[in-house]
């Protein structure tokens, strides 16, 4: 942080003389708050353009955009779910833009209208002080050692958790893994933070399919927690950055997207323990090439979303 501020101060000094009046850019972003605030500060230091940030969960951000639709306010949107990009593209709300900095972003993390800021992956988050053997695979959490000791984030509240459920249950609808989990006393505990909390305090031993970056950050702060990516595979959640086509500040918005994908911007992404979208940026954590990714057919999966959630909640409500 300090280092970053110093850098910022240095850049401010450099551009202060030349900074002219610019339009502000309004950015709505899903968490983490520290990352988007850091990006906003860094961008202002570099270009002199003020970034106004509204930060909330993906759901709240989308609700606000929906309610504002008569008179939209947002220029750039960062969502925690790639599905937002598909949905908004379909509605024709997005401005096509390919940043020159996106050259080393892999193809599956960019489209004509969106590009990933960073990527989070889902894993097993396990508390080594829980007195349980270290789990290696998803199915390990159905073993008797983990009886009543597992939480799951609610797939209805977390897009990534939903994709994991979809990937693991498969198109054939094989729910055995989840039925075993439910039979082993696993509980669905709300959003990501609500699933992690009891594991940190030791009331539970592991989260099945937690968003990884929060736990990496926790571990850095000294929490007793480990993130395990099963060898059988997992899913990742790319976080799309989009420019809305109603933006009146499109030039500044494009500059901001360029900044997110710049060396400096991607370094901030890595510092938040997300996987940088650019493959040439180092990160202090497993990156995409270290993970085995489970395939899902997102068109089909999202078309069946309601039924799958229904099925999922049925499994976990009967005990």
């Amino acid at each position, binding site marked *: 942080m300090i280092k970053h501020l110093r850098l910022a101060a240095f850049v401010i000094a450099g551009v202060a003389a030349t900074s002219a009046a610019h339009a502000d850019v309004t950015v709505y972003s899903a968490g983490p708050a520290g990352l988007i605030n850091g990006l906003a500060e860094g961008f202002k230091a570099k270009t002199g353009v003020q970034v*106004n940030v*509204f930060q909330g969960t993906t759901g709240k951000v989308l609700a606000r955009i929906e309610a504002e639709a008569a008179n939209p306010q947002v220029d750039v949107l960062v969502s925690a779910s790639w599905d937002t990009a598909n949905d908004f593209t379909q509605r024709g709300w997005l401005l096509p833009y390919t940043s020159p900095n996106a050259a080393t972003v892999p193809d599956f993390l960019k489209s004509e209208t969106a590009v990933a800021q960073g990527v989070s992956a889902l894993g097993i988050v396990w508390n080594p002080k829980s007195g349980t053997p270290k789990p290696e695979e998803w199915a390990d959490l159905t073993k008797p050692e983990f009886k009543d000791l597992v939480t799951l984030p609610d797939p209805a509240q977390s897009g990534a958790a939903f994709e994991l459920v979809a990937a693991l249950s498969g198109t054939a609808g094989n729910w055995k893994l989840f039925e075993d989990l439910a039979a082993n006393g696993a509980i669905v505990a709300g959003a990501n933070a609500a699933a992690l909390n009891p594991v940190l305090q030791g009331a539970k031993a592991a989260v099945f399919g937690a968003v990884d970056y929060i736990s990496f950050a926790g571990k850095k702060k000294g929490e007793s927690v480990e993130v395990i990516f099963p060898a059988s595979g997992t899913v990742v959640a790319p976080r799309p950055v989009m420019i809305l086509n109603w933006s009146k500040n499109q030039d500044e918005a494009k500059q901001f997207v360029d900044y997110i994908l710049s060396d400096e911007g991607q370094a901030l992404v890595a510092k938040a323990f997300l996987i940088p979208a650019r493959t040439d940026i180092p990160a202090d954590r497993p990156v995409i090439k270290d993970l085995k990714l489970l395939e899902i057919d997102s068109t089909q999966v999202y078309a069946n979303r309601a039924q799958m959630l229904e099925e999922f909640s049925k499994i976990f409500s009967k005990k």
Partner: protein
Amino acid sequence: MSTPGTTRNPGPVVWGAAAALIVLVAIPLLFIVLQAIFPAIGQGSLASPFDGVLDVLTDPKLVGMAGNTLVLGLGVVVCSAVIAVPLAFLRALFQVPLARLWDVLLLIPFMIPPYIATLGWIMTVQPNGYLKQVTGLDAGSYLFSIGGVIFVMTLGVFPVVYFAVSRTVEAIGGRYADVGRVFGASPFTALRRVTLPLSLPGLAASLLLVFAMAIEEYGTPAALGRQAGFEVLVTGIDTRVSDWPIDLRGAAVLSLVLVMMSLGAFMIQLRILANRSFETVGGKPQAVRKRPLGIFAIPVVAAFAIVTLLAVGVPLFAIFATALSKTLSGGLSPDNLGFDHFRAIVADENGAFRALVNSLSLGIATAVITGVIGAATSYMVVRTRFRGKGFLDALTVMPNAIPGVVVAVGIILAWNQPWLPVTPYNTPLILLMAYCCILLPYPVRYANAAFRQVGDNLEAAARVFGASPLVAFRRILFPLVLPSLLASMLLVFAVATRELVASLLLAPVGMSTISTFIWRQFDQGSVGLGMAMSAVTILITTTIPLLVTLASGRRGPM
């Protein structure tokens, strides 16, 4: 209804109150109704009205959610009354040892945000929680049930009833009961036939508030009820607002169902109070004379202590223990304790300090504005006769029943219209308007009950001696209702300072409040920092009412 006052011609007070109610409450409400009817109102289109309303209303889950909501609301009302009414009567009629202390301590639940109290309870009683760490006891997971939701919510809201009833009964005093005794009633009969009925306005008004608070509150049922499959309307509404695809119209329709429930409760309250007079404040001075408790002092103190321990002690312990723990997984061992999180707040990391200043300023402004509007509205409703006052009175109940998130949607729809030349939207003013809308019911209900107790003869006497209606209001009525009003304003201050649900959606870009700051910390796994911020907030919001009480030299803070 109490005897109507002499004022028939609505004065400036009334017009001002009506205008404020329309801007703050009626307009957002209108847009919620419009959203319920026109699915595409957000895009500024009135296309396909009523399309799909039936689908929302005939959703088989709706009956279950509505039933659960009623169970929850009534459960919290009954439990609050069972805890609060006996304590309030004891406090008002007897010399309870340490009475002032209990009053101050029972204020604290107002200052603890419900979602924090719930998290505190979870962290206390879950396996390996603080209860286990401190006492070795394991309370299991009884908390994650309907009973758990009612239990935690009751502990957060029963002080509303306690303060309203103890103040009302104190104002009635032993005097009316003494008259009953002179005429041969036993102490119990005097209580049942005289004091209890006279305290009805305070009791009914506060129970109405509790019911509305219970069916509107989101955090506790979401955290404790969902795991038990206990879905209420508010959690259903939140799912529609934040789950893909966003369904604002469904949320609006479900909110109107909630409003109907609250209006139903309001009608019941009106019926209870109808055709009776509760005037107890006449021109005669009354001595406050309380009886000694004698040998009952010990059990009474024990009752106050147990209730305080549960409502204040447990949540506060969990909050401070977490705030002082460097890591959550480290537990309560000495080397894991320290002031790191508090230091981070003082050092203004992540804008904690600015969030504090924002929320405290908003809280003070909300308290002042709702206090003034509340006094004027209640005066209008109780003391004047003009058509439409019933409608305006009902308006002051509804915001209490609408979930904060839907109020926020209504406000965005209303104030983000492209044709508005100037708009408070995306400025801090919009949060002030939202808080005023949501919290107006408190001062209105408190002042309403107070006005009903002031005899007409006092105002009439002032008028006989040549005072204008405005002077009579200012010099006679206002000072008499001031204690109740002040109490409700302190409550508004506390709740506005920590309002979460509307703020999450409505905060102008770049602005944090205390609650959005705390929520962000929780969302990112920094529970300790979030709890430290809660602790600081609770300290500040408890200190300010204490200072106000000391400065005004009145008895008790509420």
